[in-house]
């Protein structure tokens, strides 16, 4: 056959990508070509379906190419390619086991692609892929499917939450777990839910319900997945959120603008700049957006009591549970149960006796057990349930013969238990334990001291007199420090309210003195009320000024001005009675004299005898009037002032207080870990030289310093990273040698006059502060 001239079109027609490209540009003209390929695809599918397991390589390759082609252009010919999605679904559903792996991946990819082209909807895609994820034996396919399902759910929820789809999928997952609790397939429900929880796509009760079901299932992997989610899911979510917010700050707008000013101006660069500006703006808005309310999974639980009970009686309590968990897994479950009990203050009496057999120093990872025990304690646990445990810990762990770490861990655990339920301790035991204050081992000593300081606050009468300390002894004598009974809860109050009231009284007095009015009068009643009102109106006026200017929308301001009006009218209605009450309560018999006495009292001296009376007064102030923003601000100020003053004399006391604050600030949501229990043991042994050096360098243990560098170099690198400029000195140092040559040559040939001129100029310049001077 001789050489024939071929048209360009014909030459390249033979490959599908080319045809695909042409079809995308002009679907109408290539309709026939598409239908040809469509027919070919149909026949190849038929060939394949005839003998799925023994198809030859060539036909599989061409089938794969055709599927790829059709999926890319199927949206152009919806009528011709209407059966495409069903074909793929059937192919995958019935032949996923014996499909050649590359073809199988292509089919999955094509399904996702036609979902993106909106030929099928997400629900169809997910209901196709999810059953496969459960049934397939191929790991690579599972990985692919999991990734595709996840990304599909993410995209479906990217613009706004797709509640319908979420509900559908959540029900699917829940049913999977609920229908067969023993099957290991539930792990996929756990994985998917955890991933979506982490990305904050699912953060509702339904997701938590799924995990709850998982934790109560009968497969150890699924159980662990569910339990781990409750223990660590929220932390993971927080970390992921932080990471993503860190990542965002990559566009440096100032730099881009600077570059745009310098480099050649093209349309493309202008568009780039605009795009960058838009992204920066979007990110800014995102940053300013209100923080989404992310409830912890533990708080979203419906019926935590039931959940904790089920967990305990299913996995821990029975001698031969349905699921055999190893010690580590059991500890996880125990942690969750105790966390639930502590957090929601649940009653699960059997839990405490369960601990009993594990509390020996020989028990592996006993510190975790101790931590769980402390976690499961709260102020509504009956002391009878805890007392034997504390006794056992004291007997087993705390003795002169025990190792230092053991004793300190035991003491620490007892302290952690008693922080939550002080009534679990009896007098003799406490006095015994307190003796370890004198221990030679530092860890043990510190732990015992912690116990003493705790009981000075919560139960000083259990301590011997000499251990109580000054403050506790005084408190006991005055009756301010009383042991709290079981089930008694603290009265709510506003800290520093008495200070505020005293301040107000003083202010009023001061004003009167300024005006030259007599001390206090009966006929001043009306005047006083008017004054109070005036003050209150002033207080509300300050509202805007004290508010931080974070919101810039006008609508808010309007709302507030409305609120102001309402408050004024409120005070009109209600002000007179409280003022009267105030007076009557403070001076029931002779208003004049008593009131004067009170006002003359120095503000800072506490008066224990008057305490109960004052408490009544204070509660009235808070309940009878609305505190204005100005009041609140003053209250805050007074509070801090008072606390500073109370700290001033004794530095030691201050330190103790700080430690107590740190302990109190530990959030109730945070778990107690084994490290908290065994932490003090680190004090027992001296640090090695290496550890000390690492500590001094601010490195964490086990971390290596990455590079040896001079301090100057490090500083320079830091400066450069911050985008700061160099000093003149640095510039001079970097100056090209050749540029300095000319000057140096000239310098040697100067005349005396010239030299003088130069030197003078230099002096003058220095005075001025550089070439341009320092003005402006």
């Amino acid at each position: 056959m001789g050489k024939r001239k071929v048209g360009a079109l014909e030459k390249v027609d033979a490959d599908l990508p080319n045809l695909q490209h042409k079809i995308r540009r002009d679907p109408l003209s290539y309709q026939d070509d598409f239908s040809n390929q469509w027919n070919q695809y149909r026949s190849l599918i038929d060939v394949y379906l005839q003998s799925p397991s023994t198809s030859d390589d060539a036909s599989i390759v061409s089938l794969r190419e055709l599927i790829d082609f059709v999926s890319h252009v199927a949206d152009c010919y919806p009528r011709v390619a209407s059966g495409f999605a069903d074909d793929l679904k059937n192919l995958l559903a019935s032949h996923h086991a014996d499909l050649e792996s590359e073809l199988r991946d292509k089919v999955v990819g094509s399904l996702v692609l036609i979902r993106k082209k909106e030929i099928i909807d997400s629900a169809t895609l997910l209901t196709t892929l999810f059953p496969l994820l459960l049934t397939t034996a191929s790991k690579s396919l599972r990985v692919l499917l999991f990734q595709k399902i996840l990304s599909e759910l993410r995209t479906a929820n990217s613009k706004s939450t797709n509640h319908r789809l979420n509900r559908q999928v959540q029900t699917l997952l829940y049913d999977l777990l609920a229908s067969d609790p023993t099957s290991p397939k539930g792990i996929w429900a756990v994985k998917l839910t955890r991933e979506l929880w982490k990305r904050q796509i699912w953060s509702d009760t339904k997701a938590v319900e799924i995990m709850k079901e998982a934790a109560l299932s009968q497969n150890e992997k699924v159980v662990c997945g569910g339990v781990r989610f409750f223990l660590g899911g929220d932390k993971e979510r927080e970390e992921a959120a932080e990471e993503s917010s860190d990542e965002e700050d990559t566009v440096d707008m100032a730099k881009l603008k600077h570059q745009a000013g310098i480099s050649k101006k093209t349309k493309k660069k202008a568009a780039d700049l605009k795009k960058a500006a838009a992204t920066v703006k979007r990110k800014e808005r995102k940053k300013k957006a209100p923080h989404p309310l992310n409830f912890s999974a533990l708080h979203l639980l419906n019926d935590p009591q039931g959940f904790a009970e089920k967990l305990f009686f299913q996995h821990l309590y029975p001698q031969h549970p349905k699921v055999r968990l190893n010690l580590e897994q059991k500890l996880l479950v125990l942690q969750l149960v105790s966390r639930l009990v502590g957090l929601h203050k649940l009653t699960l009496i059997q839990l405490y006796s369960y601990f009993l057999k594990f509390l020996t120093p020989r028990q592996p990872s006993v510190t975790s057990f101790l931590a769980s025990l402390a976690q499961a304690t709260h102020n509504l646990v009956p002391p009878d349930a805890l007392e034997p445990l504390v006794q056992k810990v004291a007997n087993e762990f705390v003795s002169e013969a025990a190792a230092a770490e053991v004793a300190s861990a035991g003491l620490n655990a007892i302290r952690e238990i008693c922080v939550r339920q002080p009534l679990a301790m009896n007098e003799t035991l406490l006095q015994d334990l307190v003796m370890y204050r004198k221990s030679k081992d530092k860890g043990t000593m510190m732990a015992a001291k912690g116990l003493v300081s705790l009981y000075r606050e919560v139960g000083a009468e259990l301590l011997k007199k000499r251990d109580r300390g000054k403050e506790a002894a005084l408190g006991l004598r005055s009756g301010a420090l009383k042991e709290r009974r079981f089930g008694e809860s603290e009265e709510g109050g506003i800290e520093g309210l008495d200070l505020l009231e005293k301040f107000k009284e003083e202010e009023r007095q001061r004003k009167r003195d300024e005006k030259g009015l007599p001390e206090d009068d009966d006929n001043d009643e009306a005047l006083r009320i008017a004054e109070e009102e005036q003050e209150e109106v002033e207080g509300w006026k300050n509202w805007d000024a004290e508010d931080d200017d974070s919101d810039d929308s006008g609508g808010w301001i309007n709302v507030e001005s409305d609120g102001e009006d309402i408050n004024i009218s409120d005070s009109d209605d209600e002000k007179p009675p409280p003022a009267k009450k105030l007076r009557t309560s403070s001076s029931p018999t002779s208003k004049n004299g008593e009131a004067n006495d009170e006002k003359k009292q120095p503000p800072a001296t506490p008066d224990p005898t008057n305490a109960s009376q004052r408490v009544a007064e204070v509660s009235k102030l808070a309940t009878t009037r609305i505190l204005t923003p100005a009041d609140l601000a003053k209250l805050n100020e007074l509070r801090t002032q008072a606390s500073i003053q109370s700290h001033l004399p004794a530095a030691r006391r201050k330190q103790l207080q700080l430690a107590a604050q740190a302990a109190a600030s530990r959030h109730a949501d945070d778990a107690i870990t084994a490290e908290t229990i065994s932490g003090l043991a680190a004090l027992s042994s001296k640090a090695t030289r290496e550890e000390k050096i690492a500590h001094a360098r601010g490195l964490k243990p086990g971390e290596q310093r990455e590079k040896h560098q001079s301090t100057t170099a490090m500083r320079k690198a830091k400066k450069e990273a911050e985008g700061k400029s160099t000093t003149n000195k640095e510039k001079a140092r970097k100056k090209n040698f050749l540029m300095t040559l000319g000057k140096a040559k000239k310098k040697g040939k100067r005349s005396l006059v010239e030299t003088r001129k130069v030197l003078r100029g230099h002096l003058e310049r220095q005075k001025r502060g550089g070439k341009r001077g320092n003005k402006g």
Partner: protein
Amino acid sequence: MGSSAKRKKEKKQDFQKPKLKVGKTKPKAANFTSTSFKAKSIVLTQSTLSTTAPSLDAQILHNVSLFKSKSDSQRKDALAFITNAIMEHRKGFPYQVGEIFKEACKLLLDRSDGVRNELLKLLTQLPAVEVTIHIAEPLLRIRAGMTSLAKGIRFTSYDALIWLLKSNGEEVVSSVGTWVKYLQSFQSAFAFHAKDPAIATNTSGWSTLPSSVQPIGSNDSKVLMKQIQALESFLRAGLIQTGEDSEVLAAQSAARSFPLWHTEYHTMPTRSKPFARLNLFGPPRSAEDEMYDDVDERRRVFAELGLYRTFAHGIKTLRKQGGEVGRAASQVEKVLAEGMVDWDEDKEYEVAF
């Protein structure tokens, strides 16, 4: 142009001559590639030396297995060997020809031209009777090839179809899902458009040519000719009754084996998938997938799906092109007229499926 000391040094190194020393081997060049290899023993395939040559049976088996070989030439040689073997041993061929046919059909969509040509040579050598049983195997692949992008594959497919129709015409058109689907493939290959309002109104784009003028691979009239030829034989096989009526045939066969009754039901079937019509295990068939093993049925479907009108119109346009193509098209027109002679287009037929 390197300015730094390091660059200069690097550059200098490029031009340095290696010092050669007496009694030492020459240093190896930077781009030296080692061509040495290690092997404990070299295994030669088919190097068994026996006093007797390998039997024909074994050779055929080996060559059939080579159909799946990666190399083009090996596949081609294997096909050639089988062709020769069949030609030489027409009487006592030791291997099931049907099995060979089944394997060979997988090469219908082969990428190499040589292999496909060799395959066609092999096919012509096969006895028609052996092919009948395995006819489903090539049918799907031929249909796939008819609309392939590669011209060579299309050409081979039409050739194979023509051969198949010549040897087993009736069997082809009456097997499962062939009749309608093949017609649709022809329609798409010729780019005949049904009088479809959706397409007719859509042709507002300036780039759309009158479709029947530019079928696939239009600049190659050779393929087009083959295509028309294939269509002609396909329509002839499908629409024109050949031989006797089936009842007459049945009566004749009954007469031949007179004392016996219904012998054909007790012997091995001569058709492929003799019970396919019952569709015992598959999903319910649509009109496309149904099998039409009666001429009248085929005619009815041909007309009812609107294919008759489309083809008649398309062929007429082709005939108007004149020349070789026109002549071939007029042959097709003749077949159409002959096949549908007693067909009344306006008549309403009840839908049977």
